[in-house]
Each structure stands twice: as C-alpha cells, then as structure tokens.
C-alpha cells in the first residue's frame, strides 16, 4: 500500500514536471529517463537472467541507425523505423545469444563477447558510406511547436513525455515479466544455472528470451536518440563508454530491481551535474577534477552498498522491492 502511494506521488510529479521545470531541468530529466529506460532494458538480461552484457551500445546504435537510415533514404518516419529497429536488434540479439549459449559461453567470457560484437560493429559502420560512415548521418532537423508523435517531431516537452511513457511502459512490462513464469525461471538460472538445468528448465531457451527482449527494448532507446539528436556518428553511439554509461545506472541503483535502473540513472546524472555546479561555485575549474570526484563517488557506493542504493533505500522507506 505504502509503495503504491509513493509510486503514485512520483508519477504525479513526473507528469507535471514540464509545467514547472525550466528547459535545462527538462533536458536533464530527459537524459535521466533515457538512461533509466536503457538501464531497465539491460536489467532484463543481467538483473533478471544473470547474463552480463557490456556491449549494449550495439543495440542503441543499430536501432538508431535503422530508424535514421530509413528516414534519411525513404522519408519514412519514426513510426516505421521503430519496427525495423526492433526487428534488426532482435535478430542481432538472437544471433549473439544463440552463438554464445550454444557454445557454452558464460560469465566474463560472455561479457567480453558482447564488447567484441559492439566494437566490431562500430568499426564496420565506419565503413558503410551509405549511412554516412565516420562522417556522420545527419537527418533533417525540424522545429515544431506542436507534437507529432508518429514521426517523433516536436518540442523538448514532447521528447520528455515520450521518454517518460517508455519508462513507465518498461516498468510495467518488467513488473509483469518478473511475475511471469519467465521471471521465476530466470531467477533460478541467475542463482544457479546447473541446478536450474537439473530441474528440467530449458536454460538455453529462457536465456535467449531474455537477450531478445532486452535487445528489442534497447533498440527503441536508439530510435529515440536518433530523432532527439538528429545526427549519428559510429564513434559516439557504438562506443564502449556508452555501454558503460547504460549499465552504471542499474548497478548503482540496484541490479535486478525495478526501481534500481531509474534511481541509479537519476543519482548518476544529478551527481554529475551537481559536481560540475559545485566545483564551479568553488571556482575549481580544472578539467578532469569533476570526473575524479565522480569516480570516487562510484567507488564508495560500490564498496559500501554492494546491492545498490535502492534495496537500502527501500528498507528505509518501508516498501518492498
């Protein structure tokens, strides 16, 4: 009950946020929601099914390029691109998962395999001139005062609400997943894969399902990115630092929990901006100092809150996971 009240308050605040927030706050909030959503998607694979992916930028990038490329070459908007993005990323996720799980690759090796695929694709895209190569893919920027949800064209507030809706949908979807048969099987696989197999669970099939769901969800983040920024560079979108950015949120927030990715993304981005502002106020404008503090905070959190912030916070608030 308490959880429901808190959740409703949070949702209410988020829905009315653009009415009282300035554009800067709105842009930060949009960024938080973006990483919350991508983190939630990653969490399905790692937090639920225990498969560590360090290459999720792959799905963001392919999703973004699929939708932007389609728009650039045919003029078909986001409503079409999103399906192409989802389809491509599901196939890609299925292929990687199939290869990895068929050949019995797990743990660190699986993680490094995902990095390898992301990097391979990054350099590959540097050689696809049809999509701009390293020179970048620029799509036509349109400034509209209204909302065009079908083509993802509109005001910053529209992008905020799109991201908010995606986050809410992802949240509900993940909640249902956890309650479903898949959720229980994943948990069994995550805790002890051999034991799960001994119980007659087809671990291959359920792990595949996690990878495919996660990659499909992540691709939607890519579509958003493409139309929010209107330009794509392989160097930026496929870069390993983007994968790391995506997964820091859920790890800091609380892996395997529903609120963890959201809380983690909010904490990290507010922290990042907070440190910048704090240092500016102190007059310490040495490039690099900010990131040192950021790293120190990450270090402290991971040392003292091994399960993330949310489980500790949830206990304080007296709500369940």
């Amino acid at each position, binding site marked *: 009950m308490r959880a429901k009240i808190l959740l409703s308050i949070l949702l209410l605040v988020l829905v009315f946020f653009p009415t009282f927030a300035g554009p800067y706050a709105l842009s930060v909030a949009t960024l938080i929601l973006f990483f919350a959503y991508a983190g939630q998607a990653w969490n399905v694979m*790692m937090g639920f099914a225990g498969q*560590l992916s*360090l290459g999720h930028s792959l799905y963001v990038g392919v999703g973004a390029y699929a939708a932007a490329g389609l728009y650039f070459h045919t003029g078909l908007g986001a409503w079409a691109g999103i399906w192409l993005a989802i389809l491509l990323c599901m196939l890609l996720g299925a292929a990687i998962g199939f*290869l*990895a799980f068929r*050949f*019995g*690759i797990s*743990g*660190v*090796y699986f*993680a*490094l*395999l995902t*990095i*390898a*695929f992301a*990097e*391979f694709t990054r*350099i*590959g895209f*540097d*050689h696809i001139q049809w999509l701009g190569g390293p020179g970048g893919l620029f799509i036509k920027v349109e400034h509209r005062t209204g909302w065009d949800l079908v083509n993802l064209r509109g005001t910053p507030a529209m992008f905020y609400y799109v991201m908010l809706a995606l986050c809410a949908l992802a949240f509900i979807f993940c909640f249902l997943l956890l309650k479903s048969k898949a959720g229980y099987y994943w948990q069994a696989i995550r805790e002890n894969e051999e034991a799960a197999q001994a119980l007659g669970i087809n671990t291959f099939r359920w792990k595949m399902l996690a990878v495919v769901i996660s990659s499909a969800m992540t691709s939607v983040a890519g579509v958003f990115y493409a139309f929010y920024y209107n330009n794509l560079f392989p160097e930026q979108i496929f870069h*390993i*630092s983007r994968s*790391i950015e995506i*997964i*820091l949120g859920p*790890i*800091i927030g609380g*892996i395997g929990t529903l609120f963890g990715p959201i809380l983690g993304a909010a904490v990290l981005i507010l922290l990042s901006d907070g440190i910048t502002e704090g240092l500016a106020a102190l007059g310490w404008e*040495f*490039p*690099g*100092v*900010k*990131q*040192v503090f*950021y*790293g*120190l905070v*990450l*270090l402290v959190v*991971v*040392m003292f809150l*091994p399960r993330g912030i949310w489980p500790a916070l949830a206990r304080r608030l007296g709500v369940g996971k």
Partner: protein
Amino acid sequence: MDPVNVANLALAGVLTGLVYGLMALGLSVIFGVVRVVNFAHGEMMTIAMYAAVVLFTTLGLDPFLAILPVALAFFVLGYAMQAGLINPFITRPEHSQFMLLVAVAIIMVNALLVIFGPGARSVQLDYLLESIELGPLLLDRGKFYAALVACAASAALFAFFRYTPTGRAIRACADNWLGAKVVGLNVKHYYAFTFGLGSACVAIAGCMMVLLVDVTPPLGPYYTLLAFVIVIVGGLGSMAGALLGGVLIGVSEALAGLFITPSAKSMFSFGLLILVLLLRPQGLLGRRP
C-alpha cells in the same frame, strides 16, 4: 605486392605483438589467479608510461633503466590495490568487480589529466628513429629492443611461477582456493602478491610502450580493450597464451592493413576474438575452466 615489403611488415607485426603481449601478460596473470578482470589495466599502463616519461625528462633516465624503479613501485601499488580495494570483492559477482575497477579507471584517467594536462608526452632518444638493416629487411630499433625485453620479462615470470616457493604457492591458490586455505596458505597475501606481479608486468610494458607511442591521458581505455582481445585469443590465465595472442593480433593487423584497408584493421582483431570465443572459448592456449 612486393614480398620484401610483406615480410618487413609481418616482422614489424611480430615485434609490436610481443610488446602488446607483455602488456596483456599482467592482465592474464591476475585473472589466472585472482579471477578478477582488471578493467583498469590500460589505465595502469598509462600511469607507468607517465612515470617513465617523468624519469626521462627529470633525471634523463633511459626507459630501459626506468624499468626497475617503475616496476618496483608498481609492485607495491598493485599489492596495495589488491589488499585494500579488490580483496573484499573477490567473492562478489562479476558486475560488482567490473564497477569497482571502472571507477578506479575513471579516477586514474582524470587524475592524469589534472596532473599532466591533455598534451602528449614522449621521450626523445635518437636511436628510437633508427632502423637495423637485416639484408633487405628494416628492423625498427626501439621496437626490437622492446620485444626483447618482453621476451625476457615473460621468461622471468614463467621461471618465478615454476621454480620459486612463492610462485608454487600462488599456483596452488589458483588451482584450488579452498584447498590452499585449508593447508594454511595466506590466500589474500598471495592474491595481493599476484596483483603486484601483474602490475609490475604492466609497468615494464608501459616503459617499453613510451618507446613506441606518445602518452596522453585518454590512452588507457584503448589499451584495456586491446589487452582483453589479446588474452582472450591467447587464453585468459595462460602466460604463453598472452604472448602468442599478442603476436597473432600484431601480425593479423599488419596483414589486414596491408591487404584490405588499414582503417578496418582492428575489426579483424575483434573478428578473430569472436571466432576464438566461439570455437575455443578458453583461448588458444588456455585450459578449460
């Protein structure tokens, strides 16, 4: 394509690969024993590179002589890192270890930026621009010496693990953690010792690397990734594998650059990595986990 040119470049690939192998060796040793993947590996090497540059510019110390002090300092640093930071994490899940080392890496890169600024630093030694003539072949002098050091350092490390009591005890910890504990070995000490050794390897690699490239703070993540590719191809935890992996990557990049296009050459390293992971996940010379 002229065969002499091909031979020249393949040879250069072997030499570069040996230096890469030395860099990856540290990562492999640490993983083989402590079972932690050091995501701050390249960043540590960058620090060693700065150390070598500073010793050169302030004391005029040749990077080959800098090996000793830098490696010693890194042994201590590595020991302290494992004892203070990483030991509490060895029983934690992989993503938690990953997170810890990513945080360490972020701090290292940016601390270097604050201290040294964003500009590249290098050592200027005239012999680094010379080449040794071997019949029709031209051998890059600095690279050649660096490759020799890589071989010597690997041999020394190999001998240490094979013939010294400490080395044997570390191998016991690696093979059977619980057993080693039961016999009364101080596992945490040996873990820290291993991390120290791995760091010393990185330090030597860093001293050699300044002969080949100029150092800037953002260099770290690039080398971390490269080291991963090499140890996975060679076999995580295998010392000979790290060197072999280095040479394979060095040569395949050289040939891919020569026959296909240079801008895609590291794509072939990642392609090789994917193939090895699928066909022989323990790596070419690794043991099945």
